[in-house]
């Protein structure tokens, strides 16, 4: 078959990901971000590695040194996960690393809970769902994991969730935000129904929507809609709300890029 000379390939295409790759390795970058405290550093390193057993061992070491189990969530586990999130945001590590780290961190939180009767306080609550009629839920799974990894509590309603069930969950749990994902144009119209029923009840929380065929133009057709281009923006939305309030127009100004 025909082939290109090596020196001619660059005239046809540019591998921007190779050209732009950072010189620093993920391990080197992570080490620079780990906490200085040796005990907390061990927790962070175990989360970064996604090693659940090592997270538990590091937490045991912290508790043996007299650290409070509940405080360890805020002082060791979430900062450890923040290292991973930061590396992901910087494009140094990829999503599977984040997912494995999130699994390890959540295991750590569950472990801390078993060591005390105190109940940890999350940064806030988010309700997640996949649109009615839609069973494609991998995007929602990623959204929920990234939110939990950032310290938010998540009520995951699953996939193919009836409109009324979403509305009831919001009314009952009073989240700071509700998320909806859909792959298909045929199912994303359920978001409008959710929006209208929430508005009818006087609820004005941001309704973050994204996935497959969903686009910014569509999401802007309903009053609570905020468009998320990928799953990674979900915790950014939630943190923005904590800091700036839940006004939809502010979120749109900040995050709508098209």
């Amino acid at each position, binding site marked *: 078959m025909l082939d290109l000379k*090596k020196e001619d390939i660059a005239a046809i295409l540019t*591998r921007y990901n190779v050209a732009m*790759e950072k010189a620093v390795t993920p391990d080197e970058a992570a080490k620079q971000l780990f906490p200085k405290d040796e005990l907390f550093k061990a927790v962070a390193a175990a989360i970064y590695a996604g090693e659940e057993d090592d997270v538990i061992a590091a937490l045991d070491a912290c508790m043996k040194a007299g650290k409070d189990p509940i405080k360890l969530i805020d002082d060791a586990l979430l900062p450890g996960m923040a290292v991973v999130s930061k590396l992901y945001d910087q494009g140094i590590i*990829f*999503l*599977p690393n984040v*997912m494995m780290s999130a699994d390890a961190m959540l295991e750590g939180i569950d472990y801390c809970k078993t060591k005390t009767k105190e109940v940890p306080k999350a940064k806030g609550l988010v309700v997640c769902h996949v649109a009615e009629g839609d069973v494609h839920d991998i995007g929602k799974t990623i959204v929920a994991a990234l939110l939990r990894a950032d310290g938010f509590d998540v009520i995951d309603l699953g996939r*193919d969730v009836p409109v009324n069930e979403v509305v009831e969950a919001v009314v009952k749990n009073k989240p700071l935000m509700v998320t909806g994902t859909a792959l298909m144009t045929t199912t*994303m*119209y359920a978001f409008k129904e959710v929006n209208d029923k929430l508005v009818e009840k006087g609820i004005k929380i941001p309704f973050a929507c994204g996935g497959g065929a969903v686009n910014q133009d569509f999401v802007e057709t309903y009053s609570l809609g905020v468009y998320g281009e990928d799953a990674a923006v979900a915790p950014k939305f939630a943190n923005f709300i904590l800091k700036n309030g839940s006004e939809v127009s502010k979120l749109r100004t900040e995050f709508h890029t098209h």
Partner: protein
Amino acid sequence: MTVTRYTKMAYANADEMIFGKAKFPVKAGLGLEIGAGLTIPELNYAPRPQAGVSKEALVKEYERITRDAMGRIVQIGAPAVCLESEHVQQMSNNPSWGAAVAHAQKTIMEEFHDEYGVKCALRHTIGDIREDRDFLALRAKQNTTMLEAFDQCAAQGADLLSIETMGGKEVFDYAIIRDDTAGILFGIGVLGTSDMEFVWQNIVDIAKKNKVVAAGDTDCAQANTAMFIAGGLLDKNLAHTTAIVARCISAARTLAAYESGATGPGKDCGYENTIIKSIAGIPITQEGKTSTCAHSDVMGNLTMQVCDMWSNESVEYHGEFGGTTVQCWVESLAYDCSLMNTAIKTGNEKILRDLLTLSDKYRDPQGYVLAYDNAFRVGEAIAKNGNDTYLRSKAAAETCCAILDEGVKSGKLLLTKFELNALDAVKKDLAKLPAEKAKFVDQCLAKYNAEVPVFEFSKNYVL
């Protein structure tokens, strides 16, 4: 119907493979012959959401779509077309709806065929509705409804029957976002293949009864999920090297349709189809630069290399400056096919094929492995281990890794450190896998029964 494994290649070498020509052409519909020497545009579309409110509204929408598309084909002088209706859920959950749509479409196509002589066929892709809300229900009552939808659509005018089966997706979804090579292989190569055999033997029987074509499947639910998550060059969600390993495994899975008696054409979004064609010799539909209306990929020209029908994946029906979307996209497809067919008739088809391949071959590891010369090698690895669905999936993954290594060594395929590390991790994972299917299945069942809450093995699979 029995399952007959492929253990030999349909083609003696990669260079024999060409667009518009398949070893085993398929006749369908109104004078259409697919893979018999010319490429054919295959248009795919989706009704506007509000059209789904009633059976009557949906039928009307498909009538508009069909008339628009067929009209544009005549207006630009294209000799042949295939239309693909991917069912919205109402059409498969209510088989009479899908059948009414098929009947309405075919009636219009017959008018155009009778009046203008346009060769045409209608593909209906029935939705895989075999699920309850949070769980797959592959062998439950939904399976009966789905098969009824196939039967009624075939009886009412669908010439080509297809589906995008979802077997194994619950394990795959868990595994792909955790870089879990064994889970990817188990979900696609073992569970997916097994489910396809279960489904496709029934579809083949229905096709025979109705004297239509059992066409083919695609690993949309899994390998396309990997490709979609992997995204473009700058996306950070999945290494493209991992995505192409999943794709190669998917070829070992999608082959099961043809082993169960399907004859092609394979479905458009099966980017594994070049590998399938090399093994089975069936005609294939592909999509690429003309499916940007539905999604982006990094091999828009390359996928055309050995296609028999050329598709746009899907576009919602609505107006554009140049007409309705179906008019615009069927025109683009038809002109692409015109170019390929001109190449065939002037004896330049291999040159055009190679130009299409080369323009994307080094753009991304996915395109590099799917380039027809490399895809052929993946096909050989599958065929060599054809009798064991686990071993052939594993061999496809291993060969994919070897091809990538060679590309890197040549200095022509440039990978990021991340992609190289991911590739290295996959190779190490593969090296640790057992040599026997039974042992692999035991290991996977122990792991995924414990870790994947929505995995209900005994209800859904018989291995």
